[in-house]
């Protein structure tokens, strides 16, 4: 799997430096922040290889994942959607990547249709899964890109909180996006994240961590 390290003054600059070295676009990569300091950010960018993902074994859950994959493919066929479904390698829970042409309608407004598709898929495949196990459905890596975007937003907010000492309230987000923010900031000793408000207007607040915490 190809990867490159990127350095820059900001997260964007670091990611761009690695993308230039790899000759890839953001859509095809995973980004991991290695180190973040006020003057320099270091990231590791790994290319997601769809061809390798399709051909590689999916580990011990292969049989189960394949069953789930074919059920979703069948559902999409009945819906008249021409798309391919692949099991994302090395993910837990099982993640299904739907790809094809003009799949915007399958994502819908703010990912609403994608979320509905995931609910239907989980109801369909429930008997093949263990208790409490769920399947994640992603279309054209929309969900992955959203998670990446909100992680960047979280890191930017954390930097600002460290500089000003004031808390920042982010835009309303879905639960999986808020979760991505909490996970991105949980290891930061200087900031804390919490949520306020009611669904669907629930927002994450990033604030300075009090010394007593």
């Amino acid at each position, binding site marked *: 799997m190809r990867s490159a390290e990127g350095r820059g003054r900001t997260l964007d600059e670091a990611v761009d430096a690695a993308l230039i070295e790899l000759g890839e676009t953001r859509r095809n990569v995973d980004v991991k922040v290695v180190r973040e300091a006020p003057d320099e950010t270091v990231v590791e960018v790994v290319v997601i290889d769809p061809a390798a993902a399709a051909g590689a074994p999916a580990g011990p859950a292969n049989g189960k994942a394949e069953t789930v994959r074919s059920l979703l493919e069948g559902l999409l066929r009945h819906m008249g959607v021409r798309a391919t479904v692949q099991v994302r390698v090395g993910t837990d829970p099982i993640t299904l990547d739907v790809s094809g042409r003009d799949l915007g309608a399958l994502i819908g407004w703010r990912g609403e249709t994608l979320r509905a598709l995931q*609910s239907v898929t989980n109801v369909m495949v429930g008997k093949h899964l263990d208790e409490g196990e769920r399947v994640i459905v992603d279309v054209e890596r929309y969900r992955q890109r959203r998670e990446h975007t909100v992680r960047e937003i979280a890191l930017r907010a954390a930097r600002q909180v460290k500089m000003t000492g004031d808390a920042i309230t982010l835009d309303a987000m879905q639960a999986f996006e808020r979760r991505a923010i909490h996970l991105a900031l949980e290891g930061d000793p200087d900031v804390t994240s919490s*949520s306020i408000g009611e*669904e669907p207007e629930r927002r994450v607040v990033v604030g300075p961590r009090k010394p007593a915490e």
Partner: protein
Amino acid sequence: MSAAERIRKAIAVVNAAADGAGDEEITPTEIAEAIRDCLELPEIGSIPNVRKYLGEALDATSDGMPADFVAMTLYAALGALQEGHSLN
């Protein structure tokens, strides 16, 4: 708040319970409350199937069915509502 907004709010509560955002504990009572808020709207009475799907979602919640099943039924209610509006 319109019926569509209320149903979307109920869906968001169910999805948050399913996704486990890690920032709150959502109880079945809260989900049921969000669905009851939808059932109280007079707007839904005139549109076929919306009340039926919302009732099914409420039953599924009290029966302890998985969050995805409740969400799917609420999406059906939302779809019926939008279909009803487009026919009127």
